[in-house]
């Protein structure tokens, strides 16, 4: 712990820290500036950042796992069964589930990522996009088309530490 020194030296030490911070921030802003001019300059979030959930409609099989595992009950899914004609004549008629509705209420979502994790068919992804705030809380409900749009922003897999 600090021992008794010249009175005022502690005050001066603090002032010195601010002085050199000021000087180097003014003359070398690129290196020392801690903040950015937000709407003009943007920081890139890390690749794993949980910004918004993107949906791949083609991959979704309406298995409801995400909606059931959601702790907040903020995913709403509806679907129906659809028959697909066989690829070649005489083949079997396939039945697949078609997605009718896939809404995520981001006003309720707590960004835990459980839905992305439990999805067995790789239909849900995290995207680091974060600029989708709305003036009305109701507008935070993203429908399946909007969620599909986010898919383009999903980054590639980053490398892992050796």
């Amino acid at each position, binding site marked *: 712990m600090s021992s008794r020194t010249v009175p005022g030296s502690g005050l001066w030490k603090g002032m010195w820290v601010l002085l050199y911070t000021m000087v180097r921030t003014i003359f070398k802003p690129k290196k020392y500036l801690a903040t950015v001019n937000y709407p003009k300059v943007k920081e890139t979030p890390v690749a794993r950042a949980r910004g918004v959930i993107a949906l791949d409609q083609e991959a979704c099989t309406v298995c409801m796992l995400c909606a059931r595992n959601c*702790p907040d009950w903020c995913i709403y899914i509806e679907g129906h069964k659809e028959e697909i004609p066989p690829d070649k004549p005489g083949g079997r008629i396939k039945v697949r589930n078609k997605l009718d509705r896939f809404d995520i209420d981001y006003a309720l979502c707590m960004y835990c990522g459980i839905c992305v994790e439990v999805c067995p068919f*790789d239909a849900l992804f995290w995207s680091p996009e974060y600029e989708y705030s709305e003036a009305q809380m109701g507008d935070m409900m993203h429908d399946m088309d909007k969620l599909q749009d986010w898919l383009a922003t999903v980054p590639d897999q980053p490398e892992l530490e050796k």
Partner: protein
Amino acid sequence: MSIDADTIRHLSEVSVSVELQTEDMTLNIGPQHPSTHGVLRLVARVDGERAFDVQPVIGYMHRGYEKLAEVRTYPQITTIVNRIDWVAGYANEIPFITAAEKIMELEVPPRAQYIRLILTEMARICSHLVFMASYPLELGAASPLFFALRERERVLDLLEGVTGGRFHPNFNRIGGVKPAYGSGSMTRKWVQDLPAGFYRDTRAAMDRVLEVCDELDNLVAGNEIILARTKGVGVIPVDVAASYGLSGPNLRASGVPFDLRKMEHYLPYDELDWNVVTGTNGDCYDRWWCRLQEIRESAKMIQQAIDQVPEGPIQAKVPKVIKVPKGETYVRAENPKGEMGYYLVTDGGNGPYRVKIRSASFSNLSILPWALEGALIPDIIAIMGSLDFVLGDVDR
């Protein structure tokens, strides 16, 4: 009108009271107040600048997590325990996950344990840096805020780079840390191991953290005004602190080496070389100083740990649907704020039967009526701030 002899004698004996009769004023500090860290409310009876009978009123942020946990599955609960002490969300997960693993009798792979340790210590650094930022602000000095938060941001970026969440990582799974996303065909889902460059960035960030500790030392520790404001203010003796259940740096500042990282052996802390920081006087300055030293210790711990991270799996073999067998246990861990524990009662289901959350700030704050008796208004703020509480941790 005549005055009789008795009255005259009586009047001559009356000594003039120089004590001015003043009326007490009830001062309501909070729930909206700059230094109550959210929604704490203090009702104080003040006589001038001196306060008596300070009663904290809490519950403005009570979210009932113990009830919510009863209707959730185990993986879902880690998402809500993140939000208890949100400045160190990661550290909250550890005791809960450890409790569930203990009842399941799971052995966690060493690599996962090391990752947990590194991230917990990062959460500790973040939490203490928030204290480093807010405490001088409560005493009136604004600049340490930005110095501390700048480095915290760097550490949070690292945490986010690994877990995906800055405040609410939700990165622990029963049996390890987060495994690969999904099991489908596409390759865009990632394996959640440490990302490339993590070791390098962490080393650089820890160097910067140690550097900013020196800057904070210069800005705050030597400052005569800070010393005058904090030394000898809000002294809490060990026995009082213990009977109120104070823990963490608040208790260690009183001189007890009560550190659950040494005592409970829940993560490989024993394999690292570090010291328990203790103060001597138990005043506000010591509590500040202990936290500053703990940042240094944690930074050194992380620097050692990243050299020792073993290879191997990050997840033990667990069933896809977690069911914890019947059992009861209390597991506590050293959170940045103090002892955080979960009394977990399970009965084989997908979710627990009862979770009692023992949060550090709740007990730390309960000493306020004792500690603030007869304090000056500025000292109320100084003592309250030095306890370093988070309202989410108090109200749960």
